[in-house]
């Protein structure tokens, strides 16, 4: 047996500092006066529009700290830039975990970027909470128990569309246009969840690559196959193309668009506001531009927060309402943890949230988890483009149980 000088010194130091350090050693990133939380975000590069989210979260922790923190502890929120590049995400995450010794990770952005650290954080047993991505793979309590998403997954979204189609047109022939990757395939899986054995008979799929110039050929194929419903799991650029092409062909299917590709300014206007009339999508948030929320107490709370902490923020940007919701969810977890901020307990509390209503989410949409339900938000409401804006209709629908 060898005793190196380092272990000897370390051991001695440990004994000397025993009373104060004991708790800190039990719970990395936590002291009597501070809890350290880390995240990685695209603060630069093509996805940097999302950098508003950590900006809002930082402001929320500032508000919390001004109000005395949580159980007397100030929250120290570290945000590192990964430029939406997976290798950088891993590098920055290791920095957060190994140098900054954060208690846990919260709301890291992006599907490819989080995929790069998925194994690492699970091997190290670090809570990887409420990620800013809609991929369904984060809901895997058996394989990756330390990782959990937040927003409804693309798969849940597709389940809701399929349920609505069955309600409206029980014998529909469904065209499924999707990008040929994890994102697009979530839509295929979601429709399959609902249709089960009928999938092959009812659905015709057409995929495209993110690098394709146009998706005209796929749209033409689906029309020729006689589809009268069309579900699109595609990104904004192709969404504009699809809306325009379907309209130009004179094809009038019951058309659903992924809710990542429904921005009025980015998708609908380029395609043409009139060409999108009748298009259906879904949301779980209150749309701040919708006048029916003008006097809503929840949205008023959010507006007051914005006026006080982010006075220069663009109120029309729904990244802020997203961030406000996910931030409040974390605060609930921290409150539930009480004085036990060990990684095990943080995960335990994050995966046992009783259905929670949040000010920026639609009425009837709740955040709730359990050790075998890693889909915090499972409800959405459909909305239809009327030529000027999105109009909600029907009840809040829950995704399928799978």
């Amino acid at each position, binding site marked *: 047996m060898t005793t190196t000088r380092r272990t000897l010194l370390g051991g001695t130091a440990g004994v000397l500092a025993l009373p104060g350090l004991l708790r800190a050693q039990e719970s990395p990133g936590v002291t009597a006066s501070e809890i350290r939380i880390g995240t990685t975000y695209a603060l630069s590069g093509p996805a940097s529009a999302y950098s508003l989210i950590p900006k809002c979260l930082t402001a929320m922790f500032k508000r919390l700290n001004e109000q005395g923190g949580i159980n007397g502890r100030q929250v120290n929120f570290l945000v590192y830039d990964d430029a939406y590049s997976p290798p950088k995400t891993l590098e920055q995450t290791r920095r957060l975990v190994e140098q900054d010794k954060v208690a846990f990770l919260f709301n890291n952005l992006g599907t490819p970027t989080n995929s790069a650290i998925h194994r690492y954080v699970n091997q190290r047993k670090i809570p990887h909470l409420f990620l800013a991505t809609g991929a369904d793979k984060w809901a895997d309590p058996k394989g990756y128990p330390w990782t959990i998403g937040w927003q409804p997954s693309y798969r849940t979204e597709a389940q809701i569309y399929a349920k609505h189609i069955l309600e409206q047109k029980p014998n529909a022939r469904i065209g499924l246009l999707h990008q*040929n990757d994890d994102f697009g395939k979530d839509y295929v899986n979601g429709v399959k969840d609902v249709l089960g054995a009928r999938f092959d008979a009812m659905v015709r799929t057409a995929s495209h690559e993110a*690098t394709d110039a146009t998706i*005209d*050929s796929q749209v*033409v194929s689906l029309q020729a196959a006689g589809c009268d419903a069309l579900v699109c799991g595609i990104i904004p650029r192709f969404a504009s193309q699809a809306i325009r092409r379907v309209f130009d*062909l004179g094809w009038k299917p019951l058309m659903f668009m992924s809710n990542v590709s429904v921005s009025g300014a980015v998708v609908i206007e*380029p395609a043409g506001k009139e060409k999108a009339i009748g298009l259906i999508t879904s949301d779980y948030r209150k749309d701040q531009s919708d006048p029916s929320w003008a006097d809503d107490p929840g949205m008023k709370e959010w507006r007051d927060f914005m006026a006080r902490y982010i006075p220069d923020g663009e109120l029309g940007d729904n990244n802020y309402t997203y961030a406000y919701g996910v931030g409040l969810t974390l605060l609930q977890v921290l409150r539930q943890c009480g004085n036990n901020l060990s990684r095990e307990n943080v995960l335990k509390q994050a995966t046992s949230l009783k259905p929670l209503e949040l000010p920026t989410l639609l009425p009837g949409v709740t955040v709730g988890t359990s050790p075998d339900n890693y889909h915090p938000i499972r409800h959405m409401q459909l909305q239809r483009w009327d030529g000027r804006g999105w109009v909600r209709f029907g009840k809040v629908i829950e995704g399928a149980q799978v």
Partner: protein
Amino acid sequence: MDGLAHQIVAGIATGGIYASVALAIVMIYQATHHVNFAQGEMATLSTFIAWSMVQAGMPYWVAFFATIAVSFAIGVVVERILIRPVANAPVLTMVGVFIGLLLIIGNATGWIFGYTTKVFPSPFASEKPLFGGLVSAHELGSTAVTLTVLTLVWAFFRFTKLGLAMRAAAYNPRSARLVGIRVGWMLALGWGLAAAIGAVAGMMVAPVVFLDPTMMLGILLYAFAGALMGGIDNPAGAVLGGFTVGVLENLAGAYVVGTELKLTVALAIIIGVLLVRPSGLFGRVVFSRV
């Protein structure tokens, strides 16, 4: 059978996009004997310049020709500053420079203009879609523009002294220099022309695929396939190749290999042509006597 006809018409429309970019690739190859990987990014930058001009209130056609002029200047400047110093370097160095150029121009475009999708106007607007919505007036118009550019390029190389000098400078720089051609400037001119043609291609493509900094990324690959298929040194062949790739890709995707392997078709065409007929279907076979 209706579906088949639709796929072919849609393929020709998409092929028109590939053809216009393929033409720009062939152009620079004609003038410099290099394939410029940054061609697509340069065209995207030009399109953004045109977009800014239109946004600033300039009439479309004024912005169109102003952009061609600006792009020509950018092409010449790039050749003078970046390509000239490595003109005699090994091929790998050139490839490195081209890829560097691709990254620099691509990221600079995103940094300056942002990554959100923008609408680019078309000069060939029509109220009603044609052929049952398969082809827009814009697609017909842009095909006409591509063919016009092709004719101009062909006439330029075939009938003008400058065109002859440029060909000479590319094929045999030493002899060209001996007969008094300023080879360096001919190359710069070639870059300028290629950038100008790229700008036209970009402005014709953008109304269809919408404008963002990554607009040309996928198109360039198909355009390469088209250019190689028609013959990398034959402008008319490249245009025909572009259309053929568009149609083949659609037919293979719809009836043969399925949409998941559509992109693979483009790569298979590149490899197939290089294996069977390296000079392309319409390219000239060049023999060098050693």
